[in-house]
């Protein structure tokens, strides 16, 4: 079956309203950055105890989701599943857009964002951060080449090789992102190699949730046909990814509970950490895990796009909450500096953190950057198949 790709028209009032709305969010984010950089970080909720706050939560959420958004293309090119092939272009585009949004937030939260050039020219190869800078830049190049192979008919034959390269690169990239925390030996909340594979499986879930939402929205708003075969397949896959995330979360916490050294921070997150415990159980586990799985797998709701969309939104909210617990919660609990002793004065206690409005605006701005990039690029380049009706998209369709 021949797939025809076509730009969206993008002339409707709704289209311009969407672009304008996202533009306002981006401007607000830039304003927030100017405010924070002008005054210094004292205007944020961050401190010397909570050194990474909400901007890092959003940045890492978007970066993790970016590598996961590429999975749909990988399933087509690397694992040769025909049904995913027409979705590959959008998958590559979304991956680049989410990464751009995430990196923008990360860079603009630096103490000296004006010194970005230093980060690009001075490398300490023992630093996971330095490796990540290379991995992120490489991801842009490799996915751009991959997209070119897909777009250019003469290059189509190289698509699966480029796809394999991109797939391998993204696995390394997410390993690098997870390792930012995995290698922090001093902090009981992080020092665990499982962080890397857990981040990979989180990326599968968050990336696919983003992808499903954007796919359904763009086909609905442009009134293009989108068959149940594609949507239901993606939905089932999403359910599996969410279950896998919950498995990794369970292993991580159970493994940590076993070590007396980590019992304190585990008890904090799981049982008596106030807001962090509530966020963990109600936000990450119930809202971001159990409810989406029920929405996806409940027989009465199978094939229901509204509930699939709702499940995807819950997964994304749960994902932000999960990163908040990892990043902020992990810092809030004090480091074990004197094993066998209790610190009475000078250090310790749960560090306070209240996200400030500018931090939130910067984080949301990152999402807006990703979405505006997708919105504009599908207008100017043929990313979306003009139809994903079952008889076109489903290789096993019987009419």
């Amino acid at each position: 079956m021949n797939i025809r790709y076509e730009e969206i028209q993008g002339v409707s009032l709704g289209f311009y309203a969407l672009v304008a709305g996202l533009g306002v969010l981006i401007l607000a984010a830039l304003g927030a950055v100017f405010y924070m950089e002008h005054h210094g970080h004292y205007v944020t909720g961050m401190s010397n105890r909570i050194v990474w706050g909400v901007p890092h939560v959003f940045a890492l959420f978007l970066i993790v989701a970016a590598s996961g958004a590429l999975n749909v293309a990988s399933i087509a090119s690397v694992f040769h599943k025909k049904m995913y092939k027409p979705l590959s272009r959008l998958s590559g585009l979304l991956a680049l857009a989410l990464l751009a949004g995430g990196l923008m937030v990360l860079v603009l939260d630096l103490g000296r964002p004006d010194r970005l050039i230093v980060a690009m020219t001075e490398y300490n190869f023992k630093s996971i951060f330095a490796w990540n800078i290379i991995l992120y830049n490489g991801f842009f190049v490799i996915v751009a080449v991959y997209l070119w192979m897909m777009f250019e008919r003469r290059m189509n034959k190289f698509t699966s090789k480029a796809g394999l390269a991109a797939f391998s690169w993204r696995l390394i990239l997410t390993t690098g992102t997870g390792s930012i925390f995995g290698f922090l030996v001093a902090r009981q909340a992080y020092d665990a190699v499982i962080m890397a594979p857990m981040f990979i499986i989180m990326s599968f879930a968050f990336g696919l949730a983003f992808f499903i939402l954007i796919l359904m929205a763009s086909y609905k708003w442009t009134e293009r046909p989108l068959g149940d075969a594609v949507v239901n397949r993606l939905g089932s896959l999403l359910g599996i990814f969410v279950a896998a995330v919950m498995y990794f979360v369970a292993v991580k916490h159970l493994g940590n509970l076993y070590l007396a050294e980590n019992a304190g921070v585990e008890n904090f997150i799981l049982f008596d950490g106030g807001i962090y415990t509530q966020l963990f159980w109600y936000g990450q586990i119930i809202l971001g895990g159990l409810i989406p799985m029920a929405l996806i797998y409940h027989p009465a709701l199978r094939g229901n796009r509204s509930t699939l969309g709702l499940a995807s939104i819950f997964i994304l909210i749960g994902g932000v909450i999960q990163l908040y617990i990892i990043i902020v919660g992990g810092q809030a609990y004090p480091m074990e500096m004197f094993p066998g002793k209790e610190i009475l004065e000078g250090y310790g206690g749960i560090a306070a953190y209240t996200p400030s409005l500018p931090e939130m605006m910067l984080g949301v701005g990152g999402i807006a950057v990703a979405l505006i990039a997708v919105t504009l690029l599908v207008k100017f380049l043929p990313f979306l198949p003009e139809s994903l009706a079952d008889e076109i998209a489903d290789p096993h369709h019987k009419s």
Partner: protein
Amino acid sequence: MSKTLNRRDFIKTSSATTVGVATIVSGITLTTFAANANENPVTNEKRWGMLIDTNKLTEVEIDGMVSACQQENGWGSEVHSTGDQKPTWVRKLKVQDKATGKITSLPLMCQHCEEPPCVDVCPTNASMKREDGIVLVDKHLCIGCRYCMMACPYDARSFVHEDLTDQREHMPRGKGTVESCTLCVHKVDNGESPACVASVNSDAVIFGDLYDPKSNINQTLKKVQSAQIRADLDLNTGVRYSGI
């Protein structure tokens, strides 16, 4: 200008500029980090360290060490930063043994590790260890990512949250960069002791070359029991404690 500027001219001009900038930049770096580089090059034949005897050191003396550091290096008078946002190069800690109930007070600052986690994680090499074991932040390279603060097991580093005024000439600091105890490198390079050590009028705090068999610190460490904080991390700290 575009008419007359050919390739050769461009290369000439840009090389001259590069050399100029490089000269100025290296000059700044030299004045900041190696005051007496010409006379006594910094080598790894020395390893600066500190031994703190918590049985001898009084709480008043620890407070004195903190204010001596503030006075010397100019931190602590920030106006906007609140609570945990304020820089702390050295702090007074009070710890209690869970079994015996014994309470110990001690000053905690950068431990000047031989294997510093902050140096390992720094993406731009701004966090660095001098050959003589002093761990520093190059304020010209620091991009303010705060990864070193995540990595430090001693919570010894601070991020400057606001614009600073009235800085010490020998200790440049800057909004948006990370800072910590420098072991008063500017004094050590002139043959003096760090300000906090000098503020204590007893032998409760000893500063010196850990490698030099004739130094007081080396000889004392051979005699008395001492400990490193978080010795399990195997970072081989330059700051040692006895009595904890």
